[in-house]
């Protein structure tokens, strides 16, 4: 199918990253005015620094609390000082309890696997659909293009509640309630993903490259796969990250859709334990709620710390055009 070849500049991923980091640092130096030129008084600097530290402490309090308290036994969780450790050190036991013998059937492991499954399938699907759709909007002038794009963007103004709740009514009608697809398929619709991909492709997949491949007789889909996709990788990563995190955090839709505990994602499972503990008075659930919360946030916080760049890019799309 592909008798043609195309020489892409041979820049490796790592070199590109290093280059980008260097450019960012230079940009920062070029745009920053030295503090002394502002004529800031020393006292002001001290006060502002203290305020910044205080707000950092406020931000870290709940996170420190959950790390510390994941090491406590149930009675210690309630009786000891909240912001320091209390013997016996029960972290490993809590961890084991969480993944093994809750309800005797390892339901948390189930929730963890479910969440990963929903996030991978939904996120992968969202990325694929966004890439295809964004490519169409960026590089084709098919009939109805403008109207469709406007409709897609306008849907962003509709509140989540007003879509999720009706979705549940529709699924109740067609028996997709308590089906994993009832959650995964809607999660594949990412309006922001399509928008991000469109912008990204317009900035980084040259029309000339596509044209040249067409001259060589490559099919449209091959051009997309062989030429466009490799150039879209950073954009695809951002969309994938945004969708995976969105699905991992989603509470309202799965809460509506799933009434079987074996289908819950982590968020709904934790919410269920919380209300179950308060209704039944089963105090033994509390240490598991703490450990479960820690295990639910840990993957995302690690993901955040390692690929911070993409998070910011997702939040501030201006920076991904570079």
């Amino acid at each position, binding site marked *: 199918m592909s008798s043609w070849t195309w020489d892409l500049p041979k820049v490796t991923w790592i070199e590109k990253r290093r280059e980008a980091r260097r450019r960012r640092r230079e940009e920062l130096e070029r745009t920053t005015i030295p503090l002394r030129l502002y004529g800031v008084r020393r006292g002001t600097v001290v006060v502002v620094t203290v305020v910044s530290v205080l707000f950092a402490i406020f931000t870290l309090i709940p996170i420190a609390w959950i790390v510390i308290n994941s090491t406590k036994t149930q009675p210690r969780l309630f009786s000891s000082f909240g912001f320091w450790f209390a013997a016996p050190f029960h972290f490993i036991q809590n961890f084991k309890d969480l993944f093994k013998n809750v309800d005797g059937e390892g339901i948390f492991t189930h929730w963890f696997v479910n969440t990963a499954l929903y996030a991978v399938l939904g996120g992968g699907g969202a990325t694929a659909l966004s890439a295809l759709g964004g490519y169409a909007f960026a590089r*084709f002038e098919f009939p109805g293009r403008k109207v469709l794009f406007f409709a897609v963007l306008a849907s962003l103004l509709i509140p989540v509640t007003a879509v999720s709740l009706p979705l549940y*009514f529709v699924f109740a009608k067609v028996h997709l309630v308590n089906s994993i697809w009832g959650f995964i398929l809607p999660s594949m619709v990412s309006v922001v993903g399509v928008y991000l991909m469109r912008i990204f492709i317009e900035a980084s997949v040259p029309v000339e490259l596509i044209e040249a491949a067409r001259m060589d007789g490559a099919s449209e889909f091959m051009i997309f796969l062989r030429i466009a996709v490799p150039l879209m990788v950073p954009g695809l990563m951002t969309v994938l990250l945004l969708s995976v995190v969105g699905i991992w*955090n989603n509470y309202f839709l799965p809460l509506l859709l799933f009434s079987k505990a074996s289908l819950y994602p982590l968020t709904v499972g934790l919410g269920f334990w919380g209300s179950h503990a308060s209704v039944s008075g089963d105090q033994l659930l509390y240490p598991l709620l703490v450990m479960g919360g820690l295990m639910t946030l840990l993957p995302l916080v690690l993901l955040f710390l390692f690929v911070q760049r993409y998070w910011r890019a997702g939040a501030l799309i201006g920076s991904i055009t570079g």
Partner: protein
Amino acid sequence: MQGNVADRFAVAVAQGRGSPQVTVPSSGARAKSFSRRRHGRGLWFVAPFTLMFVLFTLVPLVYAVYTSLFTSRLVGGTVFSGFSNYQAILSSGQFWGGMVRVLIFAAIQIPVMLAIALFFATVFDIGMVRWGGFFRTVYFLPFAVPTVVSAIMWSFLLEPEFGPFTKLAENLGFHGANLLSPSLLLPMIIVIVIWEWTGYNMVILYTALRSVPRDTVEAAMVEGATLSKIILSVKLPMVRPALVMLGLLNFIGALQLFVEPSILASFTPNVSFGFTPTIFLYNTAIGNQQYDLAAAGAVVLGVVITIISVGSLMIRRKMRSVSL
């Protein structure tokens, strides 16, 4: 429940900043080089997304409107009932009670949060604090914590019997303190949401401040402008669009408040049936199985939020055209 606020902002920012790339290259030269049939191929690429978008966004919306016009009765099945569901919603004290509550919530939480975010964005932009990058990462961290988990952490911290903050309040002399009492519950939710979203708003404002050209600021300095003057009359006007946009998006999110109060409900009995509009709708649909009534409520909520968003976008556009 501010989940998709982030998404929306990404789009808002892109519209403002990325507009040069959005404009499609003039079709003159291109139209010659590849035929109409080639353009039509684009439909195949956009079809999968469009199909899913129609099925999982448009169909439910239409179905919600349809359902809201019917009423299911125990005897006699489902009958067309016109606007009676809407009448029931609009005259429901619980629905409006929740609505008023989220409006109060928004009126306090959003200005406070934006003020804090703007303060830190300015401070980091000027470089007043060492290790600004470290602080920004720490402040941004709650954005990575799932809302359910942050609600659980704060529930434990504020719990009326053993919560560390309750104990702290007692040590300070407030005996029998209950941080989740009916009067303190909403302020505490405000604290939680501020904790969750300040860093995110700060990073966006920081980026907007970074884009103020160095020359502009230096020119003001040469003219002898003081620090406060530079901030107020040079930098602030440049971030006003971002500030307005954040205000709107946080407002849309605030009206849909759900996760925090629904998790707190396991730790305090003070989260009522209609604490927020979304909680009201959830309880009506799932608890009471009144789908038609909940559908009408979802439509009302959707319409209210859409009117507010479109309205403020139009006002903003008008203001911009006046100032130009």
